[in-house]
C-alpha cells in the first residue's frame, strides 16, 4: 500500500524528472545490448519483405499453373476429338508417363487425364464414355491445375451434349435448365486473404515481441543482477520506477512496430513483386492507420510484460511465463481466422481480437469510425493503468526482494 500513498507531496516534486531518468537509463542500457538489438531489429525489418516475397511468389506460381496447364494424357489416341478440343483451349497436352500415379502421389505431377480404351466403342453404342481425371486434392499447389482440367472437361461435355440436342431438334435449355453465373464480389483489395492475415498478424506480433527483451531485463534481470534493492532504496516511489521503465519499453516497442510495418510498406510499394492480382492497399494511409490501431497494444503489452517479468523469481521463470502471454496473443487471431464468421459486435471490446479485426478492416480498405477505435482502445488502456499499479504494488512488497 505504501507504493504511493504517503508520497503524494513527493510525486508533485520533480516526479517527471525521476521518471524520465529511469526511462533514459533503460533505453541506453538496451541500445547498448548490441546482440539483442541486432536480432530484434533485423527480424522486424526483414520479416515483412521475406514473408511477402515468399507468399506472393507462391501465389503467382499457382496462378501460372492454372493458366498454362500442362496436361499429361493417357490414351490420347482413343479420343482424338477430345484432345483436339483441349489443345484449342490452350492446354499443353503431353503423353503421360507410365508411373503417373506414383508421380502424382509424390507431387511431381499435378493431374493426369486417363482415357478409357473403350471410349470410341461406348460413344458409338450411345453410352456415356469414361475419362478419368487422376489427382491428389490434398496438395494445395496442384489445386489450380486440377480445377483448370476439370473446367475444360466439363466445357467439352456441355458443348458435345448441346450439339447432340440441337441435332435432335431439342433446345439445350431442356437439358440445362440452370444457367450458373458466378458474380465475384471480392474487390481486388479483398482477395489475397492469407497475405492480409499475415500482415495484420505480424503487426500484432511485433507489438509483443518488440518490448520483450527489454521488459525482462528491466524486471527479472534487474533483480537477478542485484541492482533492484539499491534502486528501491532511492527516494523513488515504486510507481515512478514502474512508469519510467514502462515508457522505455513502450517507446522501444513502438520503434519495432514502426520498423516492421515500414518493411511491409516498402516491400508492397517498391519491391518487384510478381503480379498476382491481389493488390490490396497498404500505402502511407494504411501504415498510419495500423499504428493508430496498434497504439493501445503498444501501451498494454509492455505493461503486461513488466508484470510477468516482476512476478518471475528468476529470468528463466519470467521467460517461461512470457511464453504463455505469447501463446495467447498469437492464438487469438488464428482462432478468429478459422471461425470465419462475421465478428460479433462485442469483439471490439476484447483486446488483441479487436485490434486484429480493425487491422483486417484497414487492409480491406474499409472505413474505421473513430467510435470503433475508441471502443477497441478502452479496455487495453484501462488494463494498462491497472497493470502498472499492480506492478508498483509488487515492487513495493518486500517479498520481491526476499525471493532474489
Amino acid at each position, binding site marked *: 500500500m505504501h507504493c504511493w500513498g504517503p508520497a503524494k507531496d513527493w510525486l508533485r516534486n520533480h516526479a517527471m*524528472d525521476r521518471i524520465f531518468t529511469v526511462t533514459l537509463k533503460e533505453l541506453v542500457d538496451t541500445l547498448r545490448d548490441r546482440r539483442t538489438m541486432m536480432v530484434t531489429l533485423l527480424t522486424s525489418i526483414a520479416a515483412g519483405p521475406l514473408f511477402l516475397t515468399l507468399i506472393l511468389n507462391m501465389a503467382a506460381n499457382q496462378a501460372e499453373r492454372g493458366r498454362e496447364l500442362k496436361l499429361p494424357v493417357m490414351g490420347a489416341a482413343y479420343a482424338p476429338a477430345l484432345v483436339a478440343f483441349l489443345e484449342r483451349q490452350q492446354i499443353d497436352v503431353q503423353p503421360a508417363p507410365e508411373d503417373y500415379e506414383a508421380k502424382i502421389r509424390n507431387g511431381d505431377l499435378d493431374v493426369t487425364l486417363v482415357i478409357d480404351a473403350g471410349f470410341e466403342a461406348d460413344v458409338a453404342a450411345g453410352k456415356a464414355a469414361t475419362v478419368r481425371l487422376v489427382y491428389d486434392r490434398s496438395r494445395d499447389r496442384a489445386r489450380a491445375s486440377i480445377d483448370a482440367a476439370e473446367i475444360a472437361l466439363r466445357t467439352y461435355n456441355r458443348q458435345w451434349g448441346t450439339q447432340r440436342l440441337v441435332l435432335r431438334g431439342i433446345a439445350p435449355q431442356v437439358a440445362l435448365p440452370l444457367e450458373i453465373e458466378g458474380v465475384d464480389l471480392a474487390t481486388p483489395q479483398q482477395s489475397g486473404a492469407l497475405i492480409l492475415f499475415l500482415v495484420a498478424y505480424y503487426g500484432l506480433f511485433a507489438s509483443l515481441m518488440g518490448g520483450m527483451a527489454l521488459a525482462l531485463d528491466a524486471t527479472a534481470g534487474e533483480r537477478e543482477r542485484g541492482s533492484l*534493492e539499491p*534502486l*528501491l532504496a532511492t527516494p523513488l516511489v515504486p510507481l515512478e520506477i514502474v512508469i519510467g521503465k514502462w515508457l522505455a519499453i513502450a517507446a522501444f516497442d513502438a520503434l519495432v512496430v514502426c520498423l516492421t510495418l515500414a518493411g511491409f510498406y516498402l516491400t508492397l510499394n517498391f519491391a518487384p513483386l510478381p503480379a498476382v492480382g491481389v493488390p490490396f492497399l497498404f500505402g502511407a494511409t494504411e501504415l498510419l492507420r495500423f499504428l493508430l490501431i496498434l497504439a493501445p497494444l503498444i501501451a498494454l503489452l509492455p505493461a503486461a510484460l513488466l508484470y510477468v517479468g516482476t512476478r518471475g523469481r528468476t529470468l528463466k521463470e519470467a521467460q517461461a511465463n512470457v511464453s504463455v502471454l505469447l501463446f495467447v496473443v498469437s492464438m487469438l487471431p488464428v482462432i478468429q481466422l478459422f471461425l470465419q464468421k462475421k465478428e460479433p459486435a462485442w469483439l471490439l471490446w476484447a483486446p488483441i481480437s479487436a485490434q486484429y479485426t480493425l487491422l483486417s478492416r484497414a487492409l480491406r480498405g474499409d472505413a474505421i469510425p473513430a467510435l470503433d477505435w475508441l471502443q477497441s482502445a478502452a479496455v487495453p488502456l484501462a488494463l494498462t493503468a491497472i497493470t502498472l499499479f499492480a506492478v508498483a504494488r509488487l515492487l513495493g512488497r518486500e517479498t520481491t526482494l526476499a525471493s532474489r
Partner: protein
Amino acid sequence: MITADGLVKRFGRKREIAAVDGVSFRAANGAITGLLGPNGAGKTTLQRMLSTVVTPDAGSAAIDGLDVVRDRYRVRNGIGVLSDARGLYARLTARENVRYYGRLHGLSGAALEARIDVLFAGLGLSELADRRTQGFSQGERMKVAIARAIVHDPATLLLDEPTNGLDIMSIRGLRDLLRELRAAGKCILFSTHVMQEVSALCDTIVILGHGRVIASGTAAEILAQSRRATLEDAFVALLGSGEGLAA
C-alpha cells in the same frame, strides 16, 4: 543519528524465524558504529529495515528523527545504502552508473559531474570512469557501488559488509574515506563479520547474535564486560563457544 528501539523482523511461512528479535541501539553522528556478528546474526535484515526496504514487524527506528516506516521516502533522501545486493549495470560505464543514482536523488549538471570526479578520485576510479563495468574486478565494482551509494552526500551511511572482496590496498583506501566522512560529521553504520575491521575503524561496536544485541559499547567497554584480553576472544566468549564457525 540512528535510533532503533526493539526492532523485530520474522520470516517463514508462519513467521517462526526471528531474523531480528528486539534490537535496540544508537549510532551517533560523526562516529562509525560497527555492527559485528557471525553469518546469519541478522545484520543484513537490520540494515534493510533501516534502509526502509523492509518493514519491521514490531519496534521502531528513526534516522535523524524521521521514522523509517512512516517517512520512508524522506528517510531515503538522507541515507546512502550499500546493501547486500549491490549489482551494477554492466552495459553502463562507471560514471553512468553513479550518474544514474545522482539524478534519481535530484542532482544534475556540472555539480553532479564534479561530485562524481571527486568521488572517483578518492576511490582511485578515475581511470576507469568511462569504461563499462562489464569487465570490472570485484573490488572495482565495489568501489563503483560505494560511489553510487554516497553520490548525493547523505548524512547517514548504511554499509553492509563494504570490504567484501576488496584487497588490502582498497580496504585501506576505504578506511581513509570512511574516516574522512566521519570527520565531516556523518553517521556511519558498518556491518561486518571481520574483527579487524571493527578494531581498526569503529568508535562503537554493537555485537549481534541470533537477532539480538549481545553487547555494545566501545572496544574497551566490551573487553571489560567479557573479561577477555582481545576483541576476538571477547566476541567468541559473548556468543558462546564455536558459534562463529558453526553458523
